[in-house]
Structure formats: structure tokens, C-alpha cells
């Protein structure tokens, strides 16, 4: 350690994933003079360098790209700017818009006029979900396995059980199978698959991977390495039903049981959190602390990296308006999830601009109607927790909202509870 370096910037972006990269480029474009981007790992891209499959970029680049290719494009755009990119730099403290960051050799204190949070999310681990049984080697999160296989070139096991039917778990089922491992089965607590139908078809059905819904892992057996995984059917309280155990020989258990936003920095400086798991944001992507904006998966888990970049760009444009003193804050209306809505973003409306509402349902329904307050409604043949709902409301209509907005989703049950 050799003292503390102090510097002042217009905008500081924390995190160099598809969100942070988009935010940094856009902040510069929108007129911020000094923009600094902090990324704790040695490489830019966040989660995307390990997502070697396709499906990125259709909206943003109008072309279907792999994760690394999507990042390649953004990094090329970034290279055309004078954004100061600091890799291997971890923001360890946030006090208002003042950041303390740790680089290899020094501490840097960055006094920013505005900060954009782009820290993304991390996976829930075994500790988060309390799986019983021994603690042998061979239990990984699906994302760790993804990194091992796709970046480091190491196959974590030969016979694999996957718990959780999120997209990362399903994508890893295909990847492991193609790499010659046997995916013994995929186990899901709920009575339906948690990820996208495309992945259910192309990652599970294509390879005849057995799926057990309404099941969970009830025991992990093994001394040094996983030897067996026991699964059980679950009851209405999601508890394993005795007598329904099935035992599988396996050397690896992968967990794909959800993502949680990286909240340490946000809570440190008093940013309010929401049912999304991430910071509260208004329709200008400002958090509850003035001058701190947020975009991408740190706010809520987006379906597409394209939307991550888009929301982070909006955060950047507004951060620059904030610095210049003309953020269009007119009023404050709260937005709350009601019937069958797990969460809605944004959490408050402050401008009179058009708003894109993003939400997820709790349970799959058919012939469903989503109502945003009393003014806007949209019909859907199906709504599913895996598919984010996006409703764009024009400015004229937004002006009509004066009181708290409750978002409800009604419909017919598609899967019995």
C-alpha cells in the first residue's frame, strides 16, 4: 500500500459487464467529461465471457451473438472513447457518490458527481438454500461450472445431478452432455420449469435429460467427493415426503437456484432495497440516494443482456442530466406489485416521461390480463415466471397517474399449485 490517490470525476461506473460498459459509453456520449469504469476482475464483460452460447444481441445489435461476441462489440465501442477503464479495481466502499476502490497496489478515492451501479448479481449457493447431507467436494453453482468449462477448460464431473431449472442450469445440462459428461437428471422444486421454454426444448429434451419437477435434493452422500445424490418428492409446504426418495450415483451436484443482486455497496450507503432483491429505482433509474443510479442485473434479473445494456444506458443519460441540474423530477408515485406479481420495476415514478414497466409473475397463468393501475391493461395468452413482462406506457398516459400504482395479474391457472 502506498497512500491514497484522490481524484474527481463526473461519472463513476461500478462494474464492467454489459450494463456497466453500456453506461460508461453512454455517459460519455451524453456529455459527461470524465468517466471512470471500475471492474474488479482482470477482464471486462461481467458474466458474458463465460456465456458462450447464442441468444445475445438480437435487440441491441440486431444480430444473434454469443456472450463473448456481444462483449467484444461493446468493448470495441468503449475503446473509441476516452473512458478511463480500471480493471482489477474493486469498489470496497461507497459513501454517497464517493467511492473507495482497491487496486493491486493502491487505494483510490473517487469523488464522483454521479455514480452508476452495475455490479450485476451472483448465484445463490448451497448455504443460501440449506441442502442437507455431507459436505463433500463436487457441489458447485451452475455458474461456477460454466466458468470452469467455458473459460478455464476443466470439466467438473462425469455424472452430474442439477438442482434447479433456471436457464443457467439448463444451459449447463446441454454443455456438460456435449462435453461427454452424463447429466443424470435435473430436479426442480416447483411443478414447472423455471427457465425459458426454448432452453427446456434445446437443452433438456434434445438430450433426453430426465426432469423431476416438484422434487428436491434431500441428501448428498459422499466422504471426500459426492458419491450419491438423493432426491424426494415435496409436499405443499415444499418439504420432502418420506418414502419418495430416489437415489442416484453422481460425482457432482450443480445448483441453479436463482440469482441475488450484489448489494453490499448499495446497503453501505443507505440505498433502499426492494422485492426485486436489488436497489429501489425510479423511472429515471435513480436509487433512493441522490446521485446514485443503477442499471442491469443489480436492479433485477433481466431476461436479456440487451435489456441490461439498455437500462444501464438510460441510467447513464439521467446521471448526466442530474450532473447538469436538469433531471426532470416532477412528482412521486409509488409502484407496487399486487396479485400474482413478484416484482415491478421501476418502484417509483418521478417524471412525466414514457415508462417501460418490467415485471415477473409468481405463478404461470393462461388467458391473463396485466393491469397497471386503473389506466393500462394488456392481455397475454400465457404469463410465466421465466418470461419477463414488459409494458411500455406513453407519456400522455403516464401523466394520468397521480396515486400509487398497483400492478395486478389475473388469469386462469395453467399449472395446479
Amino acid at each position: 500500500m502506498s497512500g491514497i490517490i484522490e481524484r474527481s470525476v463526473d461519472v463513476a461506473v461500478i462494474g464492467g459487464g454489459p450494463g456497466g460498459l453500456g453506461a460508461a459509453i453512454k455517459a460519455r456520449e451524453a456529455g459527461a467529461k470524465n468517466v471512470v469504469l471500475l471492474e474488479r476482475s482482470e477482464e471486462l464483460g461481467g458474466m458474458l465471457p463465460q456465456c458462450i452460447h447464442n441468444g445475445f444481441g438480437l435487440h441491441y445489435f440486431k444480430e444473434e451473438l454469443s456472450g463473448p461476441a456481444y462483449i467484444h462489440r461493446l468493448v470495441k465501442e468503449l475503446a473509441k472513447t476516452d473512458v478511463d477503464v480500471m480493471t482489477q479495481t474493486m469498489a470496497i466502499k461507497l459513501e454517497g457518490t464517493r467511492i473507495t476502490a482497491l487496486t493491486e497496489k493502491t487505494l483510490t478515492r473517487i469523488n464522483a458527481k454521479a455514480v452508476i451501479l452495475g455490479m450485476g448479481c451472483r448465484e445463490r449457493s448451497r448455504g443460501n438454500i440449506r441442502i442437507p447431507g455431507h459436505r463433500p467436494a463436487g457441489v458447485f453453482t451452475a455458474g461456477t461450472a460454466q466458468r470452469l468449462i467455458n473459460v478455464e477448460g476443466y470439466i467438473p464431473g462425469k455424472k452430474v445431478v442439477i438442482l434447479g431449472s433456471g436457464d443457467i442450469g439448463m444451459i449447463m445440462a446441454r454443455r456438460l452432455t456435449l462435453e461427454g459428461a452424463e447429466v443424470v437428471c435435473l430436479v426442480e422444486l416447483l411443478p414447472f420449469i423455471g427457465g425459458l421454454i426454448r432452453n427446456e426444448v434445446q437443452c433438456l429434451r434434445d438430450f433426453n435429460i430426465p426432469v423431476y419437477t416438484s422434487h428436491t435434493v434431500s441428501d448428498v452422500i459422499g466422504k471426500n467427493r459426492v458419491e450419491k445424490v438423493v432426491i424426494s418428492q415435496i409436499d405443499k409446504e415444499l418439504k420432502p415426503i418420506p418414502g419418495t426418495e430416489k437415489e442416484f450415483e453422481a460425482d457432482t451436484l450443480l445448483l441453479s437456484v436463482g440469482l441475488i443482486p450484489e448489494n453490499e455497496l448499495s446497503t453501505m450507503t443507505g440505498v433502499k432495497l426492494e422485492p426485486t432483491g436489488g436497489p429501489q429505482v425510479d423511472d429515471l433509474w435513480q436509487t433512493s440516494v441522490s446521485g446514485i443510479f443503477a442499471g442491469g442485473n443489480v436492479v433485477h434479473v433481466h431476461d436479456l443482456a440487451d435489456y441490461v445494456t439498455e437500462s444501464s444506458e438510460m441510467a447513464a443519460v439521467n446521471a448526466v442530466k442530474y450532473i447538469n441540474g436538469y433531471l426532470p423530477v416532477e412528482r412521486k408515485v409509488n409502484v407496487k406489485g399486487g396479485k400474482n406479481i413478484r416484482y415491478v420495476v421501476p418502484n417509483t415514478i418521478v417524471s412525466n416521461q414514457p415508462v417501460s414497466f418490467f415485471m415477473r409473475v409468481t405463478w404461470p397463468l393462461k388467458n391473463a390480463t396485466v393491469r397497471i393501475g386503473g389506466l393500462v391493461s394488456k392481455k397475454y395468452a400465457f404469463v410465466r415466471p421465466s418470461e419477463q413482462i414488459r409494458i411500455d406506457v406513453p407519456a400522455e398516459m403516464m401523466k394520468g397517474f397521480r396515486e400509487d400504482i398497483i400492478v395486478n395479474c389475473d388469469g386462469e391457472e395453467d399449472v395446479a399449485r
Partner: protein
Amino acid sequence: MNRKAEVICLQCPLACRVEVEVDKDNKVVSASNYKCKRGKTYAAQEIINPVRVLTTTVRVLTRDQIHPLLPVTTREAIPKGLLQDAMKQLAGIEVKTPVKYGDVICPNILNTGVDVVATSEVLN
């Protein structure tokens, strides 16, 4: 012999479960449970000649320790039945640096007429 399958249509969020049957000459003899024509066409394609884009990695001969692997993709979809063979062929490939985004890593894989290309770069 006729072949039958239930194909989940991926052409729109409805995800109809289309029942489709073809005869020995791959002619569709029956299709049901689809809500629009696209579902019938899609189900026929899925039972007659399903195709998939393959994304995987190949080894890179590099000094750069962070990138022992290069992500690659087939430029277009190839027959689903060839995925495992394509993986085997690609497992034997080692790429010399520098490789650039879009470089052809394996031309015309398994005589499908489809090239496998890099979706990232390793410059040293």
C-alpha cells in the same frame, strides 16, 4: 414405418405442443394441436430434419493464461444428429494465436457446408 412426435413450437410464446406424424418418405401424414400454420411447418421441420447452432470452445496455443480456450460457433445451424460428432472433431483442434473475431476455425464441418468461426479474440 411412420414416426410420431410431440414438438413444442418455439415460434411464439404460446408454445403449442404440436402432435406430428410422418411416413417413411418423410411426408407429413398428420399434425394437430397447433394454433397457426407456423406451428405445422415448424413441427414438420423438427421431425424431418431438426437443426441446431452449436456453440462450444476449442483449445488455444497461447502464452496468455487467462484464455486457454476460444469460444466458437457454427455459422449456421447443422443437423441435430451431428452435434456430438462435431464436438469430437472440434476437440482435436488447437488454434494458433492471434485469432480474430469471425476467423474460420474449422471450414465445412462434417461436410455440412457450414464453417465454425471464432466468437472472440485471443491476440497473443
